[in-house]
């Protein structure tokens, strides 16, 4: 499969030719003239029809499922919630009723297609180590019966603007699961994550409960700027995070507002930081740390093209520009972080449009910040 970074360039080219030929061959296959469904008497006698397999409906059987909570415990909490004061019961009853409607069985993510993963790897060439790690775990999950997949907690440590958050979003997209972003820099209390007791007037469930209230039991939770968490009150949810990051303790997570034990061990944690020295050791050991460096050389060119493609997909005005960036413009942008590239491209596109052009030129690209001419004179 695609993902082995040890493949030589020739081997990769060879594989690409094979894939292109196979796809063309398959596309030319004549369609079936008969009905798609075959009567059971054409099936081999030892082969039972699919309806006998567990989860027989077409949509259900494509995903593995796990149990989020115990039904009896949910009933107990519902009875308890109905006995609360009316002002306290509102949020609690709504949350528990919604959980009962969705049911105890939830989907677990499975790895996406290898083609999409190749595109992800090509768009983020400086995340090669992370991609290899995720791919190996995906292959491991694929060796089991139902391919239930969970990325172990990973920490992406690197300078600002290198594309850590964007990569996490694209990875969540590859898995096909929703992503919840938690800004650790602005997290001053643990309530936002773990919920506030219903005895308080503002009591409500936390972000962890909200992330699991959907069809998915393995959403991606992005802990952004983990090294920036506020220490103003001394309680920033770290202690509860420590328990959540260990699968053994996360299987019985209780939200402070609802008191219902749920299985949060399938949550896929991705954290980002700029400096690991300000992260607790206890927290750091629970993550697999990847140091992301600025892209260089060919990586830089790939990042520039990837950022430009993302810009064209997102902004309507960017689609008026040609798909391919001119080579001299790309060379000017190589060496900048992904964020700087995006800002420079937006500025360059604006400069081009002002001059009445729909094609970028090297003069449109603003100089890199901090590279202006230094003033002459005595330094203070």
């Amino acid at each position, binding site marked *: *499969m*695609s993902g*082995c970074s040890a493949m030589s360039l020739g081997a990769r*080219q*060879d*594989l*690409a*030719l*094979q*894939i*292109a*030929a*196979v*796809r*063309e*061959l*398959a*596309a*030319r*296959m*004549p369609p*079936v003239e008969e009905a*798609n469904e*075959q009567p059971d008497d054409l*099936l081999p006698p030892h*082969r039972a*029809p*699919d309806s006998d*397999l*567990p989860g027989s409906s077409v949509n259900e*059987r*494509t*995903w593995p499922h796990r149990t989020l909570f115990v039904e009896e415990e949910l009933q107990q909490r519902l009875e308890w919630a109905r006995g609360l004061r009316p002002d306290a019961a509102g949020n609690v009853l709504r949350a528990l009723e919604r959980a009962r409607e969705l049911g105890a069985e939830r989907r677990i993510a*499975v*790895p*996406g*297609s*290898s*083609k*999409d993963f190749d595109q992800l790897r090509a768009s983020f060439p400086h995340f090669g180590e992370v991609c290899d790690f995720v791919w190996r775990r*995906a*292959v491991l*999950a*694929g*060796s*089991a*019966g139902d*391919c239930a997949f969970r990325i172990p907690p990973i920490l992406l440590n690197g300078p600002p603007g290198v594309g850590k958050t964007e990569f996490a979003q694209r990875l969540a997209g590859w898995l*096909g699961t929703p992503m919840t972003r938690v800004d650790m820099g602005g997290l001053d209390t643990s309530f936002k994550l773990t919920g506030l007791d219903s005895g308080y007037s503002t009591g409500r469930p936390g972000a962890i409960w909200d992330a699991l209230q959907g069809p998915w039991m393995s959403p991606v939770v992005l802990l952004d700027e983990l090294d920036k968490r506020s220490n103003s009150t001394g309680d920033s949810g770290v202690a509860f995070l420590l328990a959540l990051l260990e699968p053994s303790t996360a299987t019985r997570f209780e939200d402070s507002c609802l008191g219902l034990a749920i299985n949060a061990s399938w949550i896929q944690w991705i954290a980002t930081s700029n400096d690991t020295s300000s992260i607790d050791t206890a927290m750091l050991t629970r993550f697999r740390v990847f140091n992301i460096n600025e892209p260089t050389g060919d990586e830089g060119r790939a990042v520039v093209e990837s950022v430009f493609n993302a810009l064209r997909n997102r902004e309507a005005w960017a689609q008026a520009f040609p798909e391919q960036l001119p080579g001299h413009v790309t060379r000017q942008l190589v060496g900048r972080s992904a964020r700087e590239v995006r800002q420079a491209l937006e500025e360059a596109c604006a400069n081009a449009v002002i001059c009445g052009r729909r094609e970028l030129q090297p003069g449109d690209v603003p100089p890199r910040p901090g590279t202006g001419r230094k003033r002459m004179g005595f330094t203070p």
Partner: protein
Amino acid sequence: MTISDGIQSTGTDGTATEKPVALTPFHQSLERLNSRVEWIPTGWQALYAELRLRLYAVFCEGREPIVFLGGYEEDGHLFVETHAPDFVVQGILRKARAKAACTCMECGQPGKRRELEDWREMVLCGTCSAPRLLQLQIQRLLALDQCGTLHDACDPLMHPDARLVREAAEACGQVRKEHRLVLAGKLSNELREWVKRLLAHVQFRIVTGH
């Protein structure tokens, strides 16, 4: 490229005459190589022609007794050799064999040796090898499916040995991103039938070349 059996010469009265001349072993061998052009794969025709041209070019009186053997392809190897201790001729043959080992037997593009069904080896490029490799992967997939051990040996979703099957399934829209090919160690009935149709299509393509 043929050699006339005789040499044309001009007689004393100015008329052209032909004298029958016995072919040397060298030329007889080259005639035999020429007659075996059809035994050489189409992708190797150019290098086979170049080989014969070079041999003609180095002919001299001292090389008359040299005999060439072979002139055919077997198991992805070009067999052309001689027992004569002539460095120049040996070098020409060695270079031709080396070039054949990295030239696709079907289209003449750069290729590499691959092991195909029944342990047959062929030198093929990526494009020409794709149908055969796809056939192998499908046959292996169906065999594992019959045993009910697909998830134990390899899951087509992830295993490199089933990559081409996955790509073909995605190209036909048979498998979407969220679908897996395997459920409880077996393919679904619909997918199994589609894979068998794909196998028949691929085999037809291999045989006919269309």
